[in-house]
């Protein structure tokens, strides 16, 4: 997936996506003269899409399920990246929106018998609304304080979900068990394969939506607010509106991911949505790459598979590795895996283009 938003003007060393201030607004303009590269990118994207479609036919069910979760995380990370990467608002509580999406899907399916495919857009719409509303108090909170408020949200959430006032809907500590849907129209797919494609469909929508949004006027405004808030305001950008909007869209995508995640896992319970879920999402965007669409994909693969591998060392190892990698990436590669890949392809292209 090409990152045209942060065009190749950004030369090595990979500047920190957020700290980068002066060139940010200009660098976000898409570059036109990339014909040669475009062919390669199209080819790469086709191969990638082919691989994505092959996954459910080549792997056993449990691994299909794991890849479904990768796709789910990818949507959530896209959402968080819009807010934190592109708009510069730090959220340590996006697990809350993921949880809201998951619970909406579970409650609608379990208590009201609504078909699973309808719960996903509903979860997205509700989270868009809640996120937009949450964006308003967040407007007054700069950087650190927003991080603090969202962190508090993440810590308080499981207790809130367990509360007896909500138990009628949430099922309290027990949570809700939901049934895995079968493939429709007599398609010859087992439930795991079907869910994979169902999730993939939403990933594609999310990708197209995010890419187009970030290239539009709204996207430019969102990035301008991150890089030069005062200048953006002076240029007539409605800072309050776009910050709230970024919050809303970000929450919407994360909520959709939550709903898809709940359907895939077939279970929601308060303790799955602790503060560590929010931290996992943060790990995903930092390691995948801040302010990068492809970064969300790398990040999703990372947070799905690295803990599984690290788990073999020790129970606590995944988190120790997460923590160490967070600090290391901030120190060495602040633009994440996506930034590293970008710098490498750039260097490659430069070497090829220089006359002998």
């Amino acid at each position, binding site marked *: 997936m090409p990152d045209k938003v942060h065009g190749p003007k950004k030369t090595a060393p990979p500047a920190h996506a957020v700290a980068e201030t002066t060139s940010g607004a200009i660098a976000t303009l898409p570059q036109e003269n990339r014909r040669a590269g475009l062919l390669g990118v199209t080819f790469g994207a086709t191969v990638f899409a082919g691989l994505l479609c092959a996954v459910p036919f080549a792997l056993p069910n449990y691994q299909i399920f794991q890849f479904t979760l990768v796709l789910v995380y990818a949507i959530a990370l896209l959402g968080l990246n819009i807010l934190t990467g592109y708009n510069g608002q730090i959220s340590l509580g996006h697990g809350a929106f993921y949880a809201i999406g998951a619970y909406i899907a579970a409650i609608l399916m379990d208590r009201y018998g609504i078909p699973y495919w309808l719960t996903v857009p509903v979860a997205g719409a509700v989270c868009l609304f809640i996120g937009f509303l949450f964006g308003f108090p967040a407007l*007054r909170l700069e*950087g650190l*304080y927003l991080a603090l408020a969202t962190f508090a949200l993440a810590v308080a959430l499981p207790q809130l979900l367990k509360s007896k006032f909500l138990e009628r809907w949430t099922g309290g500590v027990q949570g809700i068990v939901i049934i895995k849907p079968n493939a429709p129209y007599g398609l010859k797919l087992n439930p795991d394969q079907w869910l994979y494609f169902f999730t993939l469909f939403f990933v594609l929508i999310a990708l197209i939506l995010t890419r187009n949004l970030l290239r539009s006027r709204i996207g430019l405004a969102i990035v301008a607010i991150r890089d030069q808030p005062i200048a953006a305001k002076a240029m007539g950008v409605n800072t309050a509106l776009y910050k709230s909007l970024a919050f809303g869209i970000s929450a919407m995508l994360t909520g959709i991911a939550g709903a898809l995640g709940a359907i895939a896992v077939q279970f929601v319970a308060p303790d799955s949505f602790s503060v560590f879920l929010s*931290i996992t999402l943060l790990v995903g965007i930092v390691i995948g790459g801040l302010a990068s669409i492809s970064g969300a994909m790398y990040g999703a693969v990372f947070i799905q598979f690295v803990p599984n591998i690290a788990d073999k060392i020790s129970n606590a190892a995944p988190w120790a590795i997460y923590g160490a990698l967070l*600090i290391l990436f901030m120190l060495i590669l602040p633009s994440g895996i996506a930034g590293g890949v970008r710098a490498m392809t750039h260097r490659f292209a430069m070497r090829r283009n220089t006359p002998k």
Partner: protein
Amino acid sequence: MDAFLHQALAGLATGSIYASLALALVMIYQATHLVNFSQGEFAMFSTYIAWSLMQAGFPYWIAFLATIAISFVLGAAIQQIIIRRFQDGSVLSVVVVFVGLLTIFNSLAGWLFGYSIKSFPSPFPKELGNTYMSAHELGAIGVMMVVLLLLVIFFRLTPLGLAMRAASQNPVSSRLVGIRVSWMLALGWGLAGAIGSVAGMMVAPVVFLDPNMMSGVLLYAFAGALVGGIDNPLGAVLGGLLVGVLENLLGAYVIGNELKLSFALAIIVAVLVIRPAGLLGAIHVSRV
């Protein structure tokens, strides 16, 4: 009435623990204008150090003092080795590093000491308690008072305290008059680590020792620090006490125990939205 008084005083005792952790947060905020998200986990880790010292046979107060010293060194070392590199970076990178430290301490404690819940002794003799307050509650308040008094003496009356205040108020001029600003920052982190360890050791007998014991306490400490004003030590103490009492009374009479954390969240959001400077904090006006 007796029950009410009992609840209020018990709130004061937990409030004094929140106040200690809030003080640690303020200590770092004053020095670096950062809010340390890993402060709670750091305090938890210190408490495990105290626990292992006691397991090794040291008497309580020796372990107590040794833990404070170790936490001081550890805090200063973290500042010098890690945080210093991010001092001038963006807020996002600093927050990410804090979150990284948080997960490292949490998993390290689980790795080294296990996830099973352990009991932690209270050093105060039972006879100290009366009808309204238990010995540990009284003791915790007393310890917090001593910590506060020592801090006031340190910052008001010693040259080092003066140098630290100068370094945080005006680092450039301080460097010109020969203060080693970087060391002062490390000192601030060390102090915060030491104060946090006291909070951890005071709260552990109440909530029991496990790697996640501080997450709630940290939230109340955030709330306390914000209510009082995040840049004001006295405000942090008052805020911490206030949050402790309110939390206990509301928990007992109004919202029940299970929504206490949401109450902390509500306080945090309300203070940040209505009066971000808190009760005693200085109001910052940024020039556009």
